[in-house]
């Protein structure tokens, strides 16, 4: 089984083009998902390519229309970078633990495509684009099109997540919240990201996304557009209807972490408290 360590990003693209390889970055998800017994090699089923040390994937740059975050940036480095949007900082601060954040990469959290990945609701709300590159081409995919199911994503075998692009925005109110069994290292029972812009008491922009309440993150663009243009008094008066509309799309499951009734109720409570805080 090939386990390759490319020296450069260009070499990594070549390797991915030549072999069927699993991309391994910090290992915080994949080393657990593929682990064997103590003192035995993890069983990856295919070869791997270890990209954690590629310096070319560790960058953050603000350009006119986008913030670019290299996929190899660790969660801890992004959390501490002054360019990082507050909503993303708020999520990263309470994600995993310091030891995990020092190894886990943003590209990995997206590539793992877990329904409970905590950075995902934030990236949905920020309209993030996932930039995929292969030896042949580079393409941008909106995050909600990139992730298509638990662990499933639209990435070709020879492609790599190069970076995340976050469009410039004027979201002035942001909120991230998560519910877990333990503060650190807990896989979320529910996560919530909200962002809005309100001017002269009128909602100009409104975005919310929920994690761990469905196979992928739930964000409803049509429901959001109904709220834009309304006054804060309008939304307060209609809060019950707004919650019941969202309730149709929040269809969580029972699992070892929580149950569907609790998840739905708390998800709607988080939405209510966000709307009433505007």
């Amino acid at each position: 089984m090939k386990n390759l360590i490319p020296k450069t990003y260009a070499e990594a693209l070549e390797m991915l083009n030549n072999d069927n390889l699993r991309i391994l970055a910090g290992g915080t998800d994949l080393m657990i998902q593929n682990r064997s017994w103590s003192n035995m090699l993890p069983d990856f089923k295919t070869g791997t390519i270890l990209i954690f040390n590629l310096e070319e994937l560790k960058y953050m740059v603000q350009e006119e229309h986008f913030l670019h975050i290299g996929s190899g940036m660790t969660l801890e480095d992004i959390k501490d970078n002054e360019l990082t949007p507050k909503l993303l900082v708020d999520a990263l601060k309470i994600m995993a633990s310091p030891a995990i954040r020092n190894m886990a990469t943003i590209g990995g959290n997206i590539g793992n495509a877990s329904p409970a990945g905590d950075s995902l609701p934030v990236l949905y709300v920020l309209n993030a684009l996932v930039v995929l590159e292969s030896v042949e081409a580079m393409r941008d995919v909106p995050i909600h099109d990139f992730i298509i199911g638990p662990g499933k994503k639209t990435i070709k075998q020879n492609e790599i997540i190069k970076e995340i692009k976050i469009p410039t925005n004027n979201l002035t109110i942001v909120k991230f919240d998560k519910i877990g069994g333990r503060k650190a290292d807990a896989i979320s029972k529910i996560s919530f990201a909200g962002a809005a812009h309100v001017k002269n008491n009128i909602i100009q922009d409104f975005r919310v996304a929920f994690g761990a309440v469905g196979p992928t993150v739930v964000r409803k663009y049509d429901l959001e557009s109904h709220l834009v243009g309304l006054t804060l008094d309008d939304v307060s008066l209609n809060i019950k209807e707004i919650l019941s509309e969202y309730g149709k799309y929040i269809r969580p499951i029972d699992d070892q972490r929580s149950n569907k009734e609790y998840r739905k109720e708390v998800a709607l409570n988080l939405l209510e408290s966000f709307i009433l805080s505007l």
Partner: protein
Amino acid sequence: MAKIKFTLNNKVVEIEESPTARLLDILRDKYDFVGVKEGCGEGECGACAVLINDKIVNSCIVPLGTVEGKSIVTIEGFSKTKRHEVLRESFEEEGAVQCGFCTPGMLIASESLLNTNPHPTDEEIKIGLSGNLCRCTGYNMIIKAVKSASKKGDGLW
């Protein structure tokens, strides 16, 4: 298999192993640094914590191939420092050690925290140690110990 070269407790070493081997297994079985413990084996308990370039990681889920060119310090290496001495005394004085299984990881987490924040508040200590589980002490003594070490060791971090 690949040749991986790195610094281990201030000594340059090179090993030929699979890049996907767990760093924890390599440290314990190839280099005999058994102060690095295996608890949960899935990154949730912190017993296997070591420092890579001065930052805490869980060695049970670090692929060996990622440490090429890095500096790794285990509890054995850290125990030769003045900072460790201060931390050890504080842990002893505050009763922060009972069975001791989590202690190497707790000390590594404390060192990693104090490296970036030499005078943490109680809340910051709780966050800094949040990835390390202790089933004996109830944490209060550990938090006190870190606080006391940061005072006594003023200037060391």
